[in-house]
């Protein structure tokens, strides 16, 4: 079974994110970058499926990103992925999900695929679009925000749960399919020391757009960012005090009711 897992390099969730001086993006200096959180669940689910299916099953990581993303790809290889395709070309405008999806579609078709796992969204731009656009481009079904995954005995169907408001949808899907993963789907493994050593020898096929036969993938720009804005500062916190705790709580309830009109 050919298992693909998509991966993106993104700032750590604990990082403080500030706008750069030019106002054209974020300040990258001093920010720690990691595998975009949800993509880790995708890698883990891909590895579990490979272990289950056995035989000549293979997990291939596919990543669109700058040179620095090699570090994240190596981490996924150290977790146990077999090889990787890294599409690295300054002409790719990553803020355009249609372009990212088109590039991924070409690379994935060239590689061959039975199932694709990715994160439910990247933790930087939070768009959650690429996987669904990619599914349309590949003409395969999609299951977004998966919280459980089980492959059928025959390996041509899967049953999943996907998170919706107030519950889960239980979905039965045919393969090939693209599945975007929610936190809680599994517990991603850590890379072991032997894994890290092995990963150094695994193949990363780095490709420019021309290698994919896509010289003009930057063609259709569909959106423009007009402005980056800091979030508004929070107001002053009114710390409620009283002679004792019950008095303070009483005062808090009064403020919430009369001043904030929140009760």
């Amino acid at each position, binding site marked *: 079974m050919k298992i693909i897992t998509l991966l993106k390099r993104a700032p750590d969730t604990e990082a403080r994110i500030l706008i750069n001086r030019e106002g054209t993006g974020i300040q990258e200096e001093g920010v720690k970058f990691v595998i975009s959180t949800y993509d880790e669940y995708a890698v883990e689910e891909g590895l579990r499926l490979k272990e289950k299916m056995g035989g000549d099953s293979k997990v291939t990581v596919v990543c669109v990103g700058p040179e620095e993303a090699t570090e994240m790809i190596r981490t996924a290889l150290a977790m146990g992925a077999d090889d990787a395709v890294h599409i690295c070309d300054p002409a790719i405008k990553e803020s355009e999900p249609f372009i990212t999806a088109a590039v991924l579609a070409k690379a994935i078709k060239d590689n061959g695929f039975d199932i694709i796992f990715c994160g439910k969204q990247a933790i930087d731009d939070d768009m959650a679009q690429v996987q669904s*656009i990619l599914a349309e481009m590949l003409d395969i079904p999609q299951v977004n925000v998966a919280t459980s995954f089980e492959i059928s005995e025959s390996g041509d169907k899967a049953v999943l749960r996907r*998170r919706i*408001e107030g519950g889960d949808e239980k979905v039965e899907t045919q393969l090939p399919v693209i599945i975007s993963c929610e936190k*809680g789907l599994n517990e991603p493994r850590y890379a072991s020391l032997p894994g890290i050593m092995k990963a150094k020898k695994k193949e990363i096929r780095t490709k420019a757009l021309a290698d994919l036969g896509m010289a003009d993938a930057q063609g259709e720009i569909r959106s423009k960012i007009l402005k980056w*804005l800091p979030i508004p500062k929070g107001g002053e916190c009114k710390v409620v005090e009283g002679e004792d705790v019950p008095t303070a709580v009483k005062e808090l309830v009064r403020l919430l009711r009369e001043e904030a009109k929140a009760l």
Partner: protein
Amino acid sequence: MANDVLVFGEMRGGELKKVTKELINTARTITEAGGGAIDALLIGEGAAGAAETIKDYGLRRITVTEDEPVKNYSTEGYAKVLTDIVQDHKPSYILVGATAMGRDLAPRTAARVNGVMFSDCIDVRMEDGICVVRRPVYSGKLYIELAREGERPTFISIRPNNIPPAEATGDGTEIVAHSSGVEADMIRALVKEIIPLSGGRPDLTEADVIVSGGRAMKDSSNFKILEELADLLGAAVGASRAAVDAGYAEHAIQVGQTGKIVNPKLYIACGISGAIQHLAGMRTSKVIVAINKDPNAPVFEKAHYGIVGDLFEIVPLLTEEIKKIM
């Protein structure tokens, strides 16, 4: 046409989602500045009945589809109907709720009609005839404002609870039944059933009030005191990542960058220190109350009201006090 807007009215369990009226209001912002008419599309069981509830909202036309293959949601079934309507009516903008359904359906359909999409927007305005959207990035650590390049069907998903709902105008609307044209074998990923989360409390993303607990809850059984307060207020119960990682709560109720992004009218943070990734998920709440032992906890920087002390003493007292005024 010019600035025609299509509102996708989301049906769940036979009911029209609350966010639909917020979408209608957004659509008015667009058409009032740029001209054009507002249509709505309702797909799913109960669509015709639900259409009556937005009949007097000044729409030009409401299209309803509820035949068997689209009674319940599927990406492929609904994407076909939405695609057909978009190709037929040629709206310039298509508005959907940034819900599980909208976030799944809109990008797929946008790809099919060669459109563009803006996800999770919190504000939409017209500037010199151009539609400008604002959306959070880095889970709400920053905002960006965007506009489309060129003319193409533009899908905008709007976060629930951000834009006030539209009021009825009294102008009636034509309701048109539409046959989906969906055959069962077109749906390769089929929803077999919906499994509700236990508890019967409102969903975090839809709740007006959220009571949330952090690492200081110390144990999952202690969430009971938060649940009592929540049930009194008709609130949802949330948890910080620290509490989830410690095994005190399920990930389904996690608030923050790797959980739910919420914006209720009232958010009560109990024993939550306020890690960046948590604040990113709840900072847009209208009123934030922090209860924490540590007066220097970062949560107080974002809170509107704070009380320093032991949550195990304060929360039950709060429940008692609120009971008195209800």
